[in-house]
């Protein structure tokens, strides 16, 4: 992976989903720096790696995706971090709550890995 690539941290308590997101990230040509299973580990990974993008599950053990989101937005050191939330919820309220907490994009499960990878590529193009 090149040093200029977009660096990504993934957090999801479901290992298969985590792997699926990792594959999509790989397909989009981004650099996966950490894939963790709960909110607390995610926080540590973010502090450690200072990635460009965080893909967070909304409901996780420890801190939830939403809590993590607010914490990130309150931390000046993590300014500029893009956040994508993943949720198994079905209503629009969850989406609204996600954006309110500071997310840049919100994906509902089940999501298409193909479309997710395409979105990741498009989203990160202007950064390059």
């Amino acid at each position, binding site marked *: 992976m090149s040093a200029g690539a977009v660096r990504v941290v993934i957090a999801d308590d*479901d290992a*298969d*989903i985590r792997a*699926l997101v990792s*594959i999509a990230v790989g397909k989009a040509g981004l650099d996966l720096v950490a894939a963790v299973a709960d909110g607390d580990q995610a926080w540590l990974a973010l502090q450690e790696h200072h990635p460009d993008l965080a893909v967070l599950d909304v*409901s996780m053990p420890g801190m939830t995706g939403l809590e993590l989101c607010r914490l990130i937005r309150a931390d000046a050191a993590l300014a500029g971090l893009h956040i994508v939330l993943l949720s*198994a*919820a*079905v*209503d*629009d*309220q969850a989406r609204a709550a996600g954006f309110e907490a500071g997310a840049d994009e919100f994906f509902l*499960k*089940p*999501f*298409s*890995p*193909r479309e997710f990878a395409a979105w990741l590529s498009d989203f990160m193009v202007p950064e390059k």
Partner: protein
Amino acid sequence: MRRFSLSIMRRLSVDTPSTALKQLPTVIAFVIAVLLAFLLPDMITRPIAVFRGSVVMVVATALSLFFAGRGRVTAWALLVPGLDLFAIALLRTGTGGTTSLFSALIILPVLWVAAEKGRRWVVVTAVGTSLALMVPYVVDWRWPADIAEWLRGVFSPFVFGVAAAIINELSRQARQQLVSIQRLARDREVRLKETLSLADQLKENEQRLNAADRFTRSVLDAVTEQSVIGTDLTGLIDVWNPGAAVMLGLPATETQGKRHIYDFHLDEELENRSRELNYPPGATVLNPGFSALVESARLGRAEVRDWTYVRTDGSSVSVAVAVTPRVDEDDATVGYIFVATDVTQALEVARLKDEFVGLISHELRTPLSSILGYLELLRDDDESPLSEEQLQYLNVAERNAHRLLRLVGDLLFTAQVTSGKFPLDISQVVLNEVVAAAVQSAGPVGSAAGVELILHLPEDSIVVRADAVRLGQACDNLISNAIKFTPRDGTVTVSLGSTDTDAVITVLDTGMGIAASELDQLYARFFRASTATRNAVPGVGLGLTITKAIVIAHDGELDVDSEEGVGTAFSMSIPLPRRS
């Protein structure tokens, strides 16, 4: 009582002394007269006449006894005084004729006859006396010798007539008095009876009232799981049942007449409700919170609303309160009744259910996400492409995973509908587009099933205020149902139209139809028509429940018209925005 008054009446009656009793003075006087006539010298001038008179008197007396024995006195009884007169006339004839000492005896039967009811008896008396006085002339077979004798025959009857008239009048008055006395006595008896029955009725009413009161009280006391609180128009408490005591921790003695219902409400809730209702006028302008509390009841509508009761120690309890007006006999509102049910537990159950449904939905959707995601990866694997056969297997797996996903979504949605959490995202919606999109997306399924889809759209756009996604979902449900229940080569016609007030979307199929007996269960959760099970049409029975809920949430109506073996038509009516 009755027997007593009757005996009084009998004693007072003029007509009641028996004929024998009436005859008695005449007989005694006659006997004395006859005795005197025999004892005194030269009294009897014609012994035969005295004898005949005595015989007549005996007959008269016998007759009087006969009538007395008969009980009922008739006019025929007057034969007795008539005979008396005749007997006296004969006695008089036998004891000196017109100069007889015993002329005065005539007065006795005269009294009897004259006292009879009716003025004619005065005339009868006069004529009778006159005839009696004339008897001596008849016996002697001669005319009265001089004026004095004529006068004796006329004047004496005149005097007797006058006496008879006086007696007749007096007895008439006495009779009238008797009648009025009898009437008074009867009236009094009737009054007395009325008073007695009234007293009985009053007693009965009192007992009934007491029973009703005891019943109400025992019902109120028996309601221990609900608080029943009654107030006057200002909210001052006057009824406080044991349920209220348990729920709010105060006995009736500390609340009745001392506290107001709003003392137990959360001020904030009352203020909010008052604002919502735009400060209703109500009976107590000074207390808008209380007015808001009773507004619906005041307007005659039954209302059950969730409130929070606050106990005196500051703790609170969630309650559903039904407010109803109390009315007096003229139907005027005199206060209110508040029946409150503790819903803390119900709310907790609802919360747990929501939580459970949310959890299940999440837990089911996560593995489905993996299944669908990895299936897609398989399909998209460019390095080792799948064979045609493998791709077909993949399609089946994907289709079924989607089916599961839809089912989970429907279940979650149904749970939201039943718990009343059903958010609508309202905007201006062009129904033509919604209907067209639904028909278009059903196209592949329709052609796979061999069912022709026909779409009728009006030329003008029909715009309503609605949730486009939910309405689309409702259309999808109706169309996919219609396709599922229509055999190969049938048609499904989807049309959009409007009435003055509503936009109407109709989905008509040529399918197997629904039995009339099942139409009313159609919208029940998990209900499946017998035609569906018989023909092995897949589904769990949530589609129509959801469709109905969506239509209702839009203040619309869902109607169905079906004939088994012919087809079914579902019509969704969504109200058009009012033109102002």
